[in-house]
């Protein structure tokens, strides 16, 4: 996803000299061409995320459209107050980009597991949050977020769902349906849509037809799609590579309750309030914590039996 993000950003930077990319000293072998091509539009600010976010705000207040980049929790949690007080309160035009959502950096250990970012940032007013599910969506997302303005958080994943043919265009706040089915709705955010698609195919073999929804926008969230799934399908299962508290599943619960709509069945797949001291590949940790395709299949079958 990082490469798709950079390709799209390069296109944008070519046309718009006000786009400035700041990196917190991450992106070795990634940003060199961008730096050469766009002098005055790229700064490696060093390992200083608080300063990076403050700088971004100052640049934005002077008319720049700023992208801050780092990995894991560094551009988000490390400088959360700068995001809140500086960027959000001042209606800055900044897209915060974190490479390494969820367990992307699984083997690097707990410090590099970004598994509370969505919930923490979701609570901030004036914030748009997008976790693209496919490579195409990644490029579309950065383009739309810069065009939209305001403060955004773009969560990049090391994995992505395969580019399934999909008619609907990318619109912030509008979910995309990848499969139709009435027995259950599987709603996923980020690259784990890949596991969700595999699970859906397996369920279909077993006679269970799933509607599969890619919820790339966590904030704003597509209320209509959630309400439709609650009313017109056999239930909702949410899938996120993230802590259960406050993430995608929680956001969907909020929409249902706020609209007095009760899904017939409901289950959240995600991390159950733990920090992982176990390391491993992203796919290994997904299986370890019950969120890979096999786990999704089992949960759905159990849920529909219950």
């Amino acid at each position, binding site marked *: 996803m990082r490469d798709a993000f950079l390709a799209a950003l390069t296109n944008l930077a070519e046309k718009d000299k006000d786009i400035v990319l700041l990196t917190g000293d991450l992106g070795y072998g990634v940003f060199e061409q961008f730096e050469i091509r766009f002098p005055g539009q790229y700064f490696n600010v060093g390992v200083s995320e608080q*300063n990076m976010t403050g700088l971004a705000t*100052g640049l934005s207040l002077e008319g720049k459209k700023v992208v801050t980049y780092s990995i894991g929790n560094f551009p988000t949690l490390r400088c959360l107050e*700068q995001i809140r007080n*500086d960027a959000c309160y001042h209606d800055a035009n900044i897209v915060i980009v974190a490479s390494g959502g969820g367990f992307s950096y699984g083997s690097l250990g707990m410090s590099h597991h970004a598994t509370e970012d969505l919930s923490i940032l979701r609570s901030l007013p004036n914030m748009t949050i997008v976790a693209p599910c496919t490579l195409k969506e990644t490029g579309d997302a950065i383009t739309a977020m810069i065009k939209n303005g305001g403060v955004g958080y773009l969560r990049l994943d090391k994995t992505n769902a395969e580019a399934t043919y999909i008619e609907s265009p990318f619109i912030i706040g509008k979910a995309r349906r990848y499969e139709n089915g009435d027995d259950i709705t599987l709603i996923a955010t980020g690259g784990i849509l890949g596991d969700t698609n595999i699970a859906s195919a397996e369920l279909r073999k077993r006679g269970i037809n799933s509607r599969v929804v890619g919820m790339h926008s966590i904030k704003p969230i597509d209320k209509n799609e959630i309400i439709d799934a609650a009313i017109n399908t056999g239930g909702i299962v949410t899938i996120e590579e993230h802590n259960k508290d406050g993430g995608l599943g929680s956001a969907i619960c909020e929409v249902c309750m706020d609209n007095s709509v009760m899904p017939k069945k409901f289950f959240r797949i995600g991390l159950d309030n733990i920090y992982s001291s176990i390391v491993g590949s992203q796919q290994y940790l997904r299986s370890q914590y019950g969120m890979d395709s096999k786990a999704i299949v089992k949960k759905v079958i159990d849920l529909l039996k219950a």
Partner: protein
Amino acid sequence: MFKIKNLKRLSLKIRRHAINMTSVGKSAHVGSILSMADILAVLYGFVMSYKADDPKWPERDRFILSKGHAGAGVYAALAETGFIPLEKLRSHYQDGSDLSGHVSHKGIPGVEFSTGSLGHGLPVATGMALAAKIDNNKHNIYVLMSDGECNEGSVWEAALFAQHHKLDNLVVIIDRNRLQSIKSTEYTLSLEPFVNKWQSFGWHVVKVDGHNHQKLVDACNSIFVGKPLCIVAETIKGKGVSFMENNILWHYRSPQGEEYDAAIAELEEKNA
């Protein structure tokens, strides 16, 4: 613009507003405002270019109060220089007011940036200075910080960046009153040798009497090509009201009753 000799009057007005606002609002930080009243008078009365009737004039100098708890002083300076009506100052800290205890830009022309949590102003000012360099604009960015604020790591992150990028359009003024929230800066987390610290970070540093208007003006003019400027302004917390001077109590206490009367009387005497 004021003449330097008239800055005394402006600084006294800011001080008087500070006593009034913190008394009416029963709010804290009067000592912090009195400490920097002369710096504000020099910036708003002499050093900075701005148009009160066109607060977003692109060529204006930018000012950020990073020690946001002294925001009432900025509101006072903005009222005295025509950005906001003087009567508005009475709403400070009141129910429904947009003049918050810590300085906020929302609805207040002339405030570039809201602060309140320490260590935020310098990074943002540094971003503004970088933008001016990128766009080849000639205005300066002034940041007023407290000395206690320099406990924050984000200050030093920005200090590194500003010197690395030779942001000589950036001026930091540090209100060096040597008192922070509970005790002295040196007792709490010693800053000395303070000038050397900033010099070793690659800044051009000038130490001045932070209550001497001419010296403050000279310091602001001592911009050094290729280096950001740090003015260590040696001040007295509570300056101008003798019983508040150098007394940490007035970081928190609001002047009421006899204390209020005495403070105003002392300032009036100086104004005479």
